[in-house]
């Protein structure tokens, strides 16, 4: 159900852009107004969400430790997986954000007759996740060329590296292939693995279809249809300098592409895609395991009812004395 609903939603979005920009010719709406609105929603929404998280307290220091603590000087510690300094925490976060360290641990469990519980390494999710995120980032950076004049040389270098294999005309960029393949894998994994299908919501399929729509429309423009790059670049630089001009004579595919990107941006702050910011704010990962070294303060700490020694001794003084235990107040 989630699959069909989400697919339908993305198809409707494509139809809206095709009809709106292609048939009705609302170029200004689709290339200027909606992108600006989407960008504003994205910025305001993300900032709002992050501030909301930041306003929520961190009462206790509760890192999940994944290696040896620092205790006795002659024991080898694991300063990254169980960090005890700020540097260790930064290392741990870098490993997590750049290389998906935790996901790399993934295993698959199976119970066979015997019974035997078996575990096999399962790196596919890690590989596909990492491939998607890195190629998406590179594609994002490559798009700087549509917004900056002159194009920074490092962006061109990145693009050249991306086309390293020199296959096809125009040269096929590795990230274009990887992003489509990894998104397809992530989608298929969701449908094929019964467990993951069971937990999946429309909110899990929708971003996948949206991203596939964006990447495929991009691929279509680069490799299969003719697109007027100059007027697109004029739009890009115009948007950035707040003097936008709606492009004329650009294909409907471009408007579909841009509209889906706008939807993605506007959808972002309301969705699970916020994990890109949340990963930095997870208290089990971004705190040092120095609990017994440095006191952590709970901002909302309040006094609680306790059972004092005096109350305790008052209740048990007789039996304590009879058992020869010392007491504070003798009868």
């Amino acid at each position: 159900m989630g699959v069909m609903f989400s697919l339908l939603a993305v198809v409707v979005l494509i139809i809206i852009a095709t009809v709106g920009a292609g048939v009705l010719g609302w170029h200004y709406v689709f290339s200027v107004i909606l992108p600006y609105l989407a960008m504003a929603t994205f910025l305001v929404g993300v900032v709002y969400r992050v501030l909301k998280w930041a306003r929520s307290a961190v009462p206790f220091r509760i890192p999940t430790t994944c290696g040896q603590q620092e205790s006795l000087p002659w024991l080898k510690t694991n300063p990254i997986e169980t960090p005890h300094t700020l540097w260790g925490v930064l290392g741990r976060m870098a490993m997590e954000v750049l290389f998906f360290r935790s996901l790399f641990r993934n295993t698959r469990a199976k119970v066979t007759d015997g019974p035997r519980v078996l575990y096999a390494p399962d790196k596919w999710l890690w590989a596909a996740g990492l491939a998607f995120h890195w190629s998406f980032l590179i594609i994002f950076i490559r798009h700087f060329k549509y917004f900056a004049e002159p194009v920074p040389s490092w962006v061109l270098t990145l693009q050249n590296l991306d086309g390293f294999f020199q296959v096809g005309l125009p040269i096929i960029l590795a990230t274009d292939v990887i992003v489509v393949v990894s998104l397809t894998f992530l989608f298929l994994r969701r449908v094929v693995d019964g467990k993951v299908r069971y937990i999946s919501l429309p909110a899990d399929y929708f971003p996948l279809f949206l991203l596939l729509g964006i990447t495929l429309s991009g691929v279509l423009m680069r490799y299969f249809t003719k697109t007027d790059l100059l007027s697109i670049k004029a739009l890009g630089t115009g948007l950035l300098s707040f003097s936008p001009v709606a492009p004329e004579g650009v294909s409907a595919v471009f408007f579909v592409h841009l509209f889906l990107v706008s939807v993605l941006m506007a959808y972002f702050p309301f969705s699970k895609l916020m994990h890109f910011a949340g990963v930095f704010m997870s208290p089990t990962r971004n705190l040092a395991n120095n609990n017994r070294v440095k006191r952590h303060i709970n901002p909302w700490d309040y006094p609680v009812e306790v059972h004092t020694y005096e109350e305790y001794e008052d209740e048990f003084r007789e039996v304590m004395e009879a058992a020869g235990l010392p007491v504070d107040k003798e009868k």
Partner: protein
Amino acid sequence: MSEALKKPEELARIQFQPKAPGWMDPAVEFRKGTWNYAAVPDTLKYLGLPNPRKWTPPDDDWQLPDNWKEIVYEGLRERLKKYRTLQVFMDICVRCGACADKCHFFIGSGDPKNMPVLRAELLRSVYRDNFTAFGKVLGKVAGGRKLTKEIIKEWFYYFFQCTECRRCSVFCPYGIDTAEITMMARELLNLLGVSIEWINTPLANCYRTGNHLGIQPHGFADSIEFAVDELEEITGLRVEAPINRKGAEILFVAPSADYFASPHYYTLLGYLLLFHALGLDYTWSTYASEGGNFGLFHSSEMIKRLNSKIYMEARRLGVKYIIGGECGHMWRVLHQYMDTMNGPADFLEVPVSPITGTRFENTRSTKMVHISEFTSDLIYHNKLKLDPSRNDHWHVTYHDSCNPARAMGLLEEPRYIIRKVCNSFTEMPENTIREQTFCCGSGAGLGTDENMEMRFRGGLPRANAVKYVHENNGVNLLLCMCAIDKATLPPLMEYWVPEVQVGGVHEMVGNALVLEGEPVRKTDLRGTPYPGVVDAGEEGGSDA
């Protein structure tokens, strides 16, 4: 144990492929052997907790307060502000499913709602429905569920089917920790008076008598006295075991099961022998006679209420610092909560081992040292005379308990000790130890007799790893440093791997420890005669 309990081979026939209907249907079947008895009214009253009444989970009507919905919503709203974990974890899960088959309860039951991601979704769906824009507008399509009494029952079933072991958190790309979610959900349920007997009764006991078992001061003194007598029989030496002694250098706090349950008791004998060998200037306390803290399975307020005793008692007795015994969740509290809740311990001194002079810099704020840190330091500095051959009747393996492994990183200290006091030590497969260790299946207050089937299911991954080293390497003793493990692994072993027994690390230390002036030891701390030794003396050496 429920009579209907299946044979191990049958219980282990588990399907991981969930079937319709989807998880949004909250209906739960309270099948015998898979849930815990409800908290009794007296304990709730004693602790001043809401809605004390007689009820039982299979009841249709749980007699919730009239405004139960507002209570839950208000409680959730408050906790979203108080805990960034909750707020962030509600928002960022992408449902990648990496956590799914990492949970021992899922592996052992195949119940899809035991996948950590779904356990969290049970709460998250209610959060989405009420606290997010999409959820309010789109409802079910956005993954929202309207809060119903059925959902309260479902929460009760599944949040008391999580042992807060944090294994899923190790594998989650964002570190989402189901223990946090479960703790929050249990706090919400507490507000309605929905909790279990085996958490609330120990809480009330501990609050009053200082320990979960409700042992009064004279009973405590008797237990220690009994242990001293028994040690005299075994070693021929009479050890000192001071209680409530003011002016001692060190306060020693252990989980109460150590002096009242078996096989914990042999670990207690180990501590007593060790402290005797060192001539340690220490004391036990009857008021702080519990290191464990069932508050962790209840609410942060209850953790603080119980934990307060340890520092208060250290101050009253005028000790310099504190050593804590072998326990799992106890050390989560002591390591991650105590200083924040009841510190600063500025009236204590930074712990320095009186034997080696080692300053435990890693505890310079809390002033509380783990016994295995203390002992491994002694062994490293050659301060103990050890005869590991006294443990040659054991081939041991070591079970990391969840909390020291995943909330402290205490991994190598016990292993260092074990290697020095035992000649045969084999690790279990790497997916099942250290930070990836599997829970005993009975932690977080779930170790009850009425919950036996679920405990055996949840304990399957642990037991199966033990079985592996038992069959391949001849392991016959499972060592651990956790009171709940010591209580619940023996029945688990009996069910899945009957040939393996359970013991503590300091039991092994006690066996291996060569004391000054002691005659040849005829039995180990369990009273099992050493082969060959008995023949040398009078026949039938021990009459215990």
